[in-house]
């Protein structure tokens, strides 16, 4: 993974010092809250329901053991001993104090980390396929471009005051494990007919009040011109995006207002101009330099069948169950990807204690090639594990409470922090996730139901990605009382679709039963073991509406 050089390191240190001076100016009254707020937001510091919340950037979801260990000690020291992994693969600390944040930023800087641009109307954390570098079906490591974009977009003088936030995602595989098309810019690595590397670029995805999937704006952008193309999109957006209405300010609204053809025309005009200056052309040497950081670890030559692994499976049924749900094939024989579930039954999805972080850091050192990934579904992935080490890895995850065998199943629920933590929320989301998980906890039932993605948001901002849930739940406020809408049929994979609202909402009492009825309807109507999503696509909303609303 990328390692900071002296320039990267100096920048984050200076940024921490800059924030320290801004905090001093705030505490002395030199800066009012109105003047300070944009500054603290550009360092990811929110004022939430109970306290200040600090959002730490985890670029393309990748962490080293040193970084994970540091997150463990920072969360222990400054935030009541836990953090929350988000759907944008960042880490949130819910209990920070303003006066501590400069120190936190310094400690983060010491391990090549920061909080820049995790909030504010700028280019946010660039996300990628969590299986990058390990998936057999990828054509390049998408994180190379992510790191290039990260540097180019950091403290970009022209694009730090956009009409609204801007989210970019890069994948390099036909399988979408990163909810690609829900991003403002969606980048897919491809090859043209001459085998040249380039990118298919789409623009205008986004969830929230008016969800859209991104539309293609560049069918093949050669690799060396990709930054120029991205800058072109950003300039068109910065100039023409709406600034009069918070809910109409994302680039998705501009794309739909102009139409994709006009958007493409403007982007291409801007792109041509930037390309001609050559200012943003990526020198092959620089691409290679960054690519070297993402070179795979020195893998051994192993057989695809590990006797240790096979015999461990004979020893433990629980291990077998965990392998079935949480372990994925690796491109290198004898290796595997192991997903760590942060969805233990009845606990908060995505939360991770300081002890767990430290335990994970130890595992990363022992078996994990010093690397772990965060997924947009609030789980973690060891991208490289020898098959022969899987059993011991699982044995170490177990006492940490990190061995739940439920990836992609009904209890692998995504939930934003919701009204329990968030100032923007209308309703709580975590208790719903907990109760649904409890009701469907039985492993056999989970296996029978198969892939079933439930995603819960506590407000229209959709941080829980409810538009992409097979079953999505949106919390709303009905006269100060929590109320919940059900949506069905969304997908954040390569078959991306936006979920559709089923009908009137339910209160806190009724929503769980309603979800149970939806799943029961699925079980009745399902044929030959198809997924929930497939059943819904086949039979439509009517049978579900009938079940929920007929009386």
């Amino acid at each position: 993974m990328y390692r900071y050089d002296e320039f990267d390191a100096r920048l984050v240190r200076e940024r921490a010092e800059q924030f320290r001076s801004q905090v001093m100016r705030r505490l002395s009254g030199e800066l009012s809250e109105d003047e300070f707020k944009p500054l603290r937001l550009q360092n990811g510091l929110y004022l939430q329901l109970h306290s200040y919340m600090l959002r730490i950037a985890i670029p393309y979801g990748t962490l080293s053991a040193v970084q994970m260990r540091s997150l463990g000690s920072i969360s222990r020291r400054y935030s009541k001993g836990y953090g929350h992994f988000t759907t944008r693969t960042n880490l949130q600390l819910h209990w920070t104090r303003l006066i501590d944040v400069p120190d936190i930023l310094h400690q983060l800087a010491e391990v090549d980390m920061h909080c820049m641009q995790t909030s504010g109307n700028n280019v946010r954390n660039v996300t990628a396929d969590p299986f990058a570098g390990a998936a057999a079906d990828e054509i390049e490591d998408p994180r190379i471009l992510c790191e290039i974009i990260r540097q180019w977009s950091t403290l970009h003088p022209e694009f730090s005051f956009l009409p609204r936030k801007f989210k970019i995602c890069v994948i390099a595989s036909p399988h979408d494990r990163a909810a690609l098309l829900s991003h403002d810019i969606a980048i897919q690595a491809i090859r043209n007919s001459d085998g040249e590397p380039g990118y298919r670029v789409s623009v205008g995805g986004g969830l929230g009040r008016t969800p859209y999937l991104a539309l293609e704006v560049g069918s093949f952008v050669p690799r060396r011109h990709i930054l120029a193309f991205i800058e072109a999109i950003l300039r068109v957006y910065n100039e023409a995006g709406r600034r009069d209405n918070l809910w109409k300010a994302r680039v998705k609204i501009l794309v739909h207002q102009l139409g994709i053809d006009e958007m493409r025309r403007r982007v291409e005009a801007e792109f041509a101009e930037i390309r001609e200056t050559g200012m943003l052309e990526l020198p092959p040497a620089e691409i290679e330099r960054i690519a070297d950081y993402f070179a795979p670890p020195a893998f051994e030559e192993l057989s695809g069948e590990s006797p240790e692994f096979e015999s461990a499976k004979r020893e433990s049924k629980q291990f077998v169950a965990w392998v079935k749900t949480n372990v994925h094939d690796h491109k290198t024989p004898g290796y595997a990807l192991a997903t760590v579930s942060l969805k233990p039954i009845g606990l908060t999805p995505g939360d991770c204690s300081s002890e767990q972080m430290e335990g994970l850091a130890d595992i990363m050192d022992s078996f994990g090639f010093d690397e772990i990934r965060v997924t947009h579904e609030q789980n973690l992935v060891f991208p490289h594990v020898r098959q022969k080490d899987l059993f011991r890895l699982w044995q170490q995850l177990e006492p940490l409470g990190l061995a739940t065998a439920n990836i992609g199943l009904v209890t692998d629920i995504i939930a934003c922090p919701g009204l329990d933590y968030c100032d923007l929320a209308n309703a709580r989301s975590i208790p719903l996730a907990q109760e649904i998980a409890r009701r469907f906890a039985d492993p056999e039932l989970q296996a029978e139901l198969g892939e079933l993605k439930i995603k819960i948001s506590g407000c229209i901002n959709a941080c829980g990605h409810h538009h992409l849930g097979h079953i999505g739940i949106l919390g709303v406020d009905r006269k100060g009382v929590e109320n919940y809408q059900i949506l069905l049929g969304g997908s954040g994979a390569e078959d991306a679709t936006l979920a559709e609202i089923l009908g009137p909402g339910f209160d806190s009492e009724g929503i769980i039963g309603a979800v149970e009825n939806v799943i029961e309807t699925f079980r009745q109507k399902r044929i030959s073991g198809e997924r929930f999503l497939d059943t819904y696509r086949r039979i439509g909303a009517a049978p579900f509406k009938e079940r929920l609303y007929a009386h």
Partner: protein
Amino acid sequence: MKVVTANKLTFGEVVYWTSRGWQSSLQQAVVLDDADAERALKLAAESVQRCEVVAPYAFAVRVEHGRIIAISAREQIRAQGPSVRLDVGKQAA
């Protein structure tokens, strides 16, 4: 009936307007009618100027058997802490 609340600038902790300034428990808050709430908000604005608190506002409460109860789910949670982690927040103090 209303209560005025804010967050402490330095710590971010939720505080309530009481007869002895800002305190951390809702039960210590002064319950105000609309006119008094307006006056309290003006005083709160001065507190903001002095860099003590941020984002003051008033919210609705009712009083039951001497206990102040926030009417909205949001303010109930804000007064106690996350409903899903009873070991953190004001409820754990």
